[in-house]
């Protein structure tokens, strides 16, 4: 997956591999990413290590070629990510010579917040949402890229490409700027920030097809492999380390599973699968009758769950 052969480097061959549809999405995203670099004082790219972040990073590297990425990456580490994700993150940063900032809410760690005994809501609020706000404040970023897509979830379907946040990172869905043509309004006052979503118009299928065509590396957890899992509340959870205690009667079993989306390991359910290639993942995705975020335990916390989290500052 790492070495791109001479044939692959031939631009005509590579361009031919992308459909008109994917080429259009690629160009649109590159345009959005360049816009931020041109207009903001201190942008940052949120890097969550998942497939969408992978595509976003790949597009950013293309956008500034032959120059380097003119902004750093930021990973909000809740300390509960899969170990494989962290390894992958560091490898990608080293390979491309990227400036990677890693931020953990130290106060949350000191308070002992964790996804198991604190509950998913509090953990997400403190270790992700609060941590993100702290990190943005600490480095004084005025624009932050996120890999969210409009097809993911209902409240995201109305999200702007340039999403305005008033001081304190407040998202008011009623008070967003109209976005006409590609004439994004990039002007803000001190204290205000913008979240930018270059993948707004991509679907999950587009992300996988582009990942395949462009041979973008992804965390191996997306591919099926025998992994130790426990069954809890009808979901398969991979016990990535000893911090997750077993409940009475629970037993670790090895099953062939993969992850459709990646988050904190106790909050991210696996699905049984034999898909070991992107082609098989795509085929499986189209066969499957559940949506991408169904394995994300935090979305089911309450009605209109994502909208509420977003108002609080979640990406």
């Amino acid at each position, binding site marked *: 997956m790492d070495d791109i052969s001479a044939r692959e480097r031939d631009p005509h061959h590579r361009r031919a591999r992308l459909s008109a549809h994917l080429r259009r999405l690629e*160009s649109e995203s590159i345009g959005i990413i360049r816009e931020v670099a*041109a207009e903001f004082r201190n942008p940052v790219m949120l890097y969550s290590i998942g497939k969408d972040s992978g595509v976003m990073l790949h597009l950013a590297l293309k956008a500034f070629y032959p120059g380097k990425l003119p902004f750093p990456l930021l990973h909000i580490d809740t300390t509960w990510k899969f170990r494989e994700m962290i390894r992958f993150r560091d490898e990608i940063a080293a390979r491309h010579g990227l400036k990677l900032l890693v931020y953990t809410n130290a106060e949350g760690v000191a308070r002992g917040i964790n996804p198991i005994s604190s509950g998913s809501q509090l953990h997400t609020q403190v270790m992700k949402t609060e941590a993100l706000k702290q990190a943005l404040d600490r480095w004084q970023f005025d624009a932050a890229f996120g890999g969210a897509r409009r097809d993911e979830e209902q409240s995201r379907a109305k999200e702007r490409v340039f999403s305005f946040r008033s001081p304190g990172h407040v998202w008011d869905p009623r008070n967003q700027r109209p976005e*006409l043509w590609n*004439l994004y309004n990039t002007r803000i006052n001190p204290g205000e920030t913008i979240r930018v979503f270059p993948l707004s118009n991509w679907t999950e299928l587009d992300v996988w097809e582009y990942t395949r065509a462009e041979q973008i590396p992804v965390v191996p957890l997306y591919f099926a492999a025998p992994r130790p899992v426990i069954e809890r509340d009808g979901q398969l959870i991979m016990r990535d380390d000893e911090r997750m205690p077993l409940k009475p009667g629970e037993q670790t079993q090895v099953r062939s599973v993969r992850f459709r989306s990646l988050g904190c390991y106790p909050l991210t359910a696996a699905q049984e699968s034999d898909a070991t290639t992107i082609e098989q993942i795509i085929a499986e995705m189209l066969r499957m009758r559940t949506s991408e975020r169904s394995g994300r335990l935090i979305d089911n916390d309450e009605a209109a769950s994502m909208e509420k989290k977003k108002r609080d500052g979640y990406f």
Partner: protein
Amino acid sequence: MTDTSERFAYVPEDAATGARAGEKTLLRFLTCGSVDDGKSTLIGRLLYDTQLIHDDQLAALERDSRKHGTTGDELDLALLVDGLQAEREQGITIDVAYRFFATPRRAFIVADTPGHEQYTRNMATGASNAQAAVILIDARKGVLTQTRRHSFICALLGIRHVVLAINKIDLVEYSGERFHHIVAEYLGFAAALKFASIASIPLSARYGDNVVRRSECMSWYEGPTLIEQLETLDVSEGLDEKPLRFPVQWVNRPNADFRGFAGTVASGIVRPGDPVVVAVSGRETRVERIVTADGDLAEAHAGDAVTLTLSDEVDIARGDLLAHAQARPEVVDQFAAQVLWMLEEPMLPGRSYLLRIGTRYVPARITSLKHKVDVNTLEHIAAKTLGLNEIGVCNLATTSPVALDAYADNRATGAFVLIDRFTHATAAAGMISFGLRRATNIHRQALLVDKAARMRLNGHRPAILWFTGLSGSGKSTVANIVERELHAHGAHTYMLDGDNVRHGLNRDLGFTDADRVENIRRVGEVAKLFVDAGAIVLCSFISPFRAERRMVRELVESGEFIEIFCDTPLDECRRRDPKGLYARALAGKIRNFTGIDSPYEPPENPELVLTPGPLGPEEGARQVLEALRARHIIV
């Protein structure tokens, strides 16, 4: 509900065949209609029948249908698309939502926009990036005022293809007669809008007839289903055939050896060797390379994000527009446009806004509003301002020349937005009709005596001393003393105040917000002439709005505008009430009186703040003169 065999099977993209003709393309369309027309239901139906609804979403839908649904025991497909909580609860669509589905032939991005008049701006937002519009009509109701409004906005935003979806056909017994009657009425009215194509389809979103599945209840209809129409609609705008337009977005300078101009081709095709010009400066050069991360290209087409290198070292920055040397855009500093106002606060002719066109930001103001357009009847109505969601035909002036095309010729170089300069809210969207004055044609009379020459003769620098503050705050009193002192020192001065301009130059203006803005604009222009003549101009005006004071500041050179804020508290001004105006305003005899029923926006960074003190106006005047010495305006 729907036989799964009707649904689409996935066909993976096959790169090996390289079959360009059959490759998957993208169509962006918007749906217009109000919730009563079944718009959200139609989109829900498209998603459902193209298998985009997953089991967990279906479970949520069943739950929600019982809670908020309007379809009894059946699934309410509209709930799939009404995303935000308030909308689900109120049963209306108030924002633009983007939906995605695909068939083997095409990927679709649907902008789902609200239909009510108070959401015209949301609909325009959806239309700005759409290639086609699906306009819903309730078969029971036929062509309504809102149908006309939706069609007009689509045409205004440059949509060329319309699909007329005559919905709820099941509720008129699948009547072909009713369908044909509605179509005839619509075509009669839409002829003036000059759409390139109009296809009319009878359908039932609720039951799925003629959406994805061909209806068995309408043997009289032989046209395509909605999905067939959308899959085969040719929306090519011929962008490749239009003249090259390349707005420079970002200058890529990773090292001393590489200087590239990154951007997205807005129209036309660019190839290495092509002669291009920087539109505003007129500098010519040639394209050297088309650089991408995948290697250099032999050509780039409209929509491609690339980086160009040029054969000459030409001064180019973000905001410049590169064009083919033989087909240049207009370069003007005044143009006519259709403007859709998007702020609660009304548009004021004369006020300065930030205009964004392409990748360029430039200060601009609306110089005149010719008329507004009633979106329901298309009638022209005389108006002084535009309110939220109103559309007007305006002239605009920019502070420096910009390159542009008419919107009808090129959406990318003919569209702009206006941004409020203080809140930075997006204030308006505009579509350029034509340029009014070629900036290149303005040959200013070459002057033998200039400002610098006059300054040497006068022995002092020119300036505008702008006194702002509430009525009764002491502006004129202090200004009079300052002028007396300046005159005694031999400085050339002139005083402009409400009394000497309101009686002559501005006698046609009243005290509405729009007139106040125009009042200050004219005063600013006159003051500028005096500055050019070398004088120190003392302007004493309440001038309640920051935007107008900034407008005057920008008319003259940096350092020539001295803003003096007479910061006397309202209570003190009322106590003084030198002309008895507060008493009359409080008695309701004067309307729009600043501080009473009209706002005053204090300066954020004035050069000088004068507060009332025991030493009286003489002390204020002393501070002003000291500030002028410190700035070397006088010695």
